[in-house]
């Protein structure tokens, strides 16, 4: 532990432990937390990929075909599959944590966690179905 201003130097004999750099590897819950934090990289990666896709689309049909060709490369497919896994991990853990932050009350009683989580998943499903419908229409 670092020197804290609140701890005076008048107690030089207090023993202070140092937190290891690998503190997150000591406990399953800490490890899951770190994976969740790191999964934000996958989220950012997909944002960049989507922006690249939009950019290719604006360049015209030929550029978009080239972009699609580039996406089919085994390396890209592997990278995207791994990133998708972490993206889903991020999304699912995010929805599961949502009731902690939302302490909504109805008629004086707190809304059960399952309703908040459920409505998040419901919205996710509805938007996904809507998108699939929109894309399959044309």
């Amino acid at each position, binding site marked *: *532990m*670092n020197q*804290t201003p*609140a*701890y005076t130097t008048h*107690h030089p*004999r*207090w*023993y*202070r*432990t140092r*937190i290891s750099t690998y*503190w*997150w590897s*000591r*406990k399953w*819950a*800490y490890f899951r*937390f770190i994976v969740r*934090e790191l999964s934000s990289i996958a989220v950012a990666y997909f944002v960049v990929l989507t922006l690249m896709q939009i950019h290719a689309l604006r360049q015209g049909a030929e550029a978009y075909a080239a972009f699609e060709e580039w996406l089919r490369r085994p390396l890209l497919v592997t990278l995207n599959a791994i990133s998708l896994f972490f993206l889903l991990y991020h999304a699912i853990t995010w929805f599961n*944590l949502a009731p*902690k*932050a*939302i*302490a909504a*009350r109805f008629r*004086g009683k707190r809304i059960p966690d399952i309703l908040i989580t459920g409505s998040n998943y419901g919205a996710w499903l509805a938007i996904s179905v809507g998108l699939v419908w929109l894309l399959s229409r044309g």
Partner: protein
Amino acid sequence: MAETITLEVSRYRPEQETEPTYQKYEVPVRKDWVVLDALNHIKDKIDTSLSYRWSCRMGVCGSCGMMVNNEPKLTCATFLSDYVPGPVRVEPLRNFPVVRDLVIAMTDFMDKLLRVKPWIIRDQEKPLSEGEYLQTPEELDAYKQFSMCINCMICYAACPVYGLDPHFVGPAAIALAQRYNRDSRDQGSQERLDILSQHDAIWGCTFVGECTKVCPKHVDPAGAIQQYKLEATKEWFKSFLLPWSAR
């Protein structure tokens, strides 16, 4: 059931050693014994020099928090029989400086607790003649969970953020601030928000969530902090969009 169990107790005697060592003690296992009973047995029968804090033996005073096999626990509520055949490692609460053996320095926590003003703040106290401040069961329910905190600091021992950054105000202090913010009799939430919307307070929390898991009183400090973040964000937007409505 084994008749005895080995306790590996962390010893730190600053006048003798520069860092803690472990001392083994054989103690009897009894069905109704908790880890604290085993420590009391050691103190009474085996080694009078062992130092540790305890008081009520019933999960109310919050003084007997220690690491039991690497998990922060109230030792008065942790049954010895759950650890058979042992050994059981008992260490001082993590993330705090050790004063002696199992005794940690809690000065930092006390300072932080004071900073969040955990008491009812009124703009103007109403005269005694008007009677007490009344509260409905629903109003009580809004903060009751957070009021169960016994300041045992177990959540601080589970919080890696506090371990890595001792400036972090920490789970219990923020949950207790929420306890008063949610109280219908209190008018000090804006005062507390100024203190708690700092980087070393609610925004320091990365939502590991372990504080809630280890809390022996089911206070849910992680929830309190996330809800506070939401409220602070709303307040910020309000002051940004309607600057004239500010205090």
